[in-house]
């Protein structure tokens, strides 16, 4: 191995800062470096075919609301002004920590003084049995007959995994622009009117949001007893579920896919755990994403290892267990501000913040990451919703937390506030989300809300109802007296 690196060495491009990843965390870091170090060279390596686009916008792309050329969240001038050299597509497969070199799958080499791993996450593909389509036809007619077709030799891969799914037309993940483009052309080519979505979490529902916008009914298959189960409770989910079902979509809870039927390389239906068959020609795999740790496999040596769990561990400065190597964004497992536990929170605002902090520290500054907490905003069929923090407190918190709720199914609104030790630790808003951030501020600042409890749940809750010291802090700012 050492030999190959030495040979590549001669053509190795050098930069003060190498950033792997061209999305929220990577670019926030680059901008942050530039505020401190005006001259150091910055190279950003992207593994995609497009110069810059915002991944969360793929929902809006698929829905026809935004064009590819309008999907950039930083324009060309950003790279120019900040003197950032962008290189793509470069798929980094290995880092040699000793010689401080980054190697791509095609053998390109980059030498760094400081490195940022901001390479994000990858979709999880559950292992599902693949069956031939004759099997499907026969079993639709008669479940009990163990017919000849079922025992037929199937040449196709027998198990769906992160490699085989790409070879079956009609099965897609939904995390990058290529996914959205391929789904789009599949819909047109096959005149798709309905899709199955495996996973009723954030990505599943975000894709559902897009499909419904373009008139495609969805069938959402979810393992738990409700959709958006990580953040919603039964009542919050029921509002969205009812609306989906009223508009002709279907939700299968406590269910999953048992078998996938393939005919001539194309998806030809699925069988659920409960035996039900869905004649679907499009399936979105949306069971979640995980930090992309593939680079570590070939990079970690006995001597030098980047420590990781589900994601890459960092300290408060976003530096990893290896000096001069930092990490930020969806690839990181950092600590939860509310629980204090290590956790991977793959959301845009935290990627931006972690990137900013990593960048500052890489450039010699000293910024501290104070931890983050989960939050997200999702709108399905014109019902907006926002959830922040711990919305479903675990059993060991029972008796300690106080929960106030206002559930109005007829108005399609719901408000839930979770409190612990006089402070808000979680929030769900469905329908009326307009002042969600005020609650977020109370969570972030750990404000004692015991005296304003009744106000919190009111429909017209606002700044004026806040505890006076905190209100003053917000309205007049620090150090200015009214």
């Amino acid at each position: 191995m050492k030999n190959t690196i030495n040979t590549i060495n001669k053509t190795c491009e050098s930069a003060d800062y190498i950033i792997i990843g061209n999305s929220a965390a990577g670019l926030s870091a680059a901008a942050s470096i530039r505020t401190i170090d005006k001259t150091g060279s910055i190279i950003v390596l992207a593994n995609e075919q497009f110069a810059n686009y915002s991944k969360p916008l793929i929902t809006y792309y698929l829905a026809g609301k935004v064009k590819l050329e309008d999907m950039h969240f930083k324009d060309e001038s950003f790279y120019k002004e900040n003197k950032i050299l962008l290189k793509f597509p470069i798929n980094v497969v290995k880092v040699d920590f000793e010689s401080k070199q980054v190697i791509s799958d095609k053998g390109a080499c980059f030498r760094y003084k400081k490195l940022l791993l901001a390479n994000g996450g990858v979709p999880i593909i559950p292992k599902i049995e693949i069956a031939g389509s004759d099997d499907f036809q026969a079993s639709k007619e008669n479940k009990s007959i163990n017919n000849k077709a079922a025992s037929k030799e199937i040449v196709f891969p027998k198990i769906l995994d992160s490699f085989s799914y790409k070879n079956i037309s009609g099965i897609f993940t939904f995390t990058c622009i290529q996914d959205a483009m391929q789904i789009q052309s599949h819909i047109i080519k096959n005149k798709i009117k309905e899709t199955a979505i495996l996973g009723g979490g954030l990505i599943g529902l975000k894709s559902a949001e897009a499909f419904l916008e373009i008139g495609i009914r969805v069938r959402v298959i979810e393992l738990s007893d409700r959709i958006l189960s990580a953040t919603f409770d039964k009542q919050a989910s029921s509002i969205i579920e009812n609306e989906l079902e009223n508009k002709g979509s279907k939700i299968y809870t406590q269910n999953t896919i048992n078998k996938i039927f393939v005919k001539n390389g194309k998806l030809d239906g699925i069988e659920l755990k409960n035996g039900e068959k869905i004649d679907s020609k499009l399936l979105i795999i949306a069971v979640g994403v995980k930090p992309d740790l593939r680079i570590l496999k070939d990079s970690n040596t006995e001597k030098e290892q980047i420590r990781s769990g589900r994601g890459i561990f960092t300290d408060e400065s976003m530096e990893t267990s290896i000096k001069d190597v930092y990490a930020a964004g969806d690839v990181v497992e950092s600590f939860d501000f509310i629980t204090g536990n290590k956790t991977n929170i793959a959301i845009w605002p935290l990627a931006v913040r972690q990137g900013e902090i990593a960048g500052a520290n890489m450039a010699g500054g000293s910024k501290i990451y104070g931890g983050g907490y989960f939050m997200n905003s999702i709108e399905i069929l014109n019902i907006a919703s926002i959830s922040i923090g711990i919305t479903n407190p675990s059993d060991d918190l029972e008796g300690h937390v106080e929960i106030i709720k206002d559930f109005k199914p007829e108005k399609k609104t719901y408000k839930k506030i979770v409190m612990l030790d006089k402070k808000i630790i979680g929030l769900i808003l469905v329908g009326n989300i307009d002042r969600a951030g005020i609650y977020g501020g109370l969570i972030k600042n750990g404000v004692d809300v015991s005296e304003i409890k009744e106000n919190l749940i009111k429909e017209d809750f606002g700044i004026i109802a806040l505890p006076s010291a905190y209100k003053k802090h917000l309205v007049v700012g620090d150090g200015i007296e009214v």
Partner: protein
Amino acid sequence: MKKIYIKEEYCIACRLCEIYCQVKHSKSKKILKAFKNETDILSRVLVEEIGYNSFAIQCRHCEDAPCVEACISGAMQKNKNTGIVTCDEKKCVGCWMCIMACPYGVIKRDLSEKKVASKCDLCGDEEYPVCVRNCPNEALQFKDI
């Protein structure tokens, strides 16, 4: 930069600031025409009132603006020179991440045409924001920090 300061004790909740903000952000820019034909214009300043207590609040144009950090489309930007935080409505996709992030709760959902986030732009083309200029009791003041 110049910012709007809120003088809570001077506010009489007359809501003239809201009206002038709506007119300023109307198509016609005329109070009667706007009142008659453009009923869905949102005011970007918000008067809050409980009993005799009231104040008008709008975007604080934060230094480290959480709405800019949360924006997935690049629509929400803080101008480096002026310090003003604005939402480029062409780029905005109405994901409401900014609403989730703003601790002041001063970003609204504009659903009148394409869904976009609506917020105070400090009337960038005016010497004084219209809410400040039209406040009869100087409960809003436009001053340098």
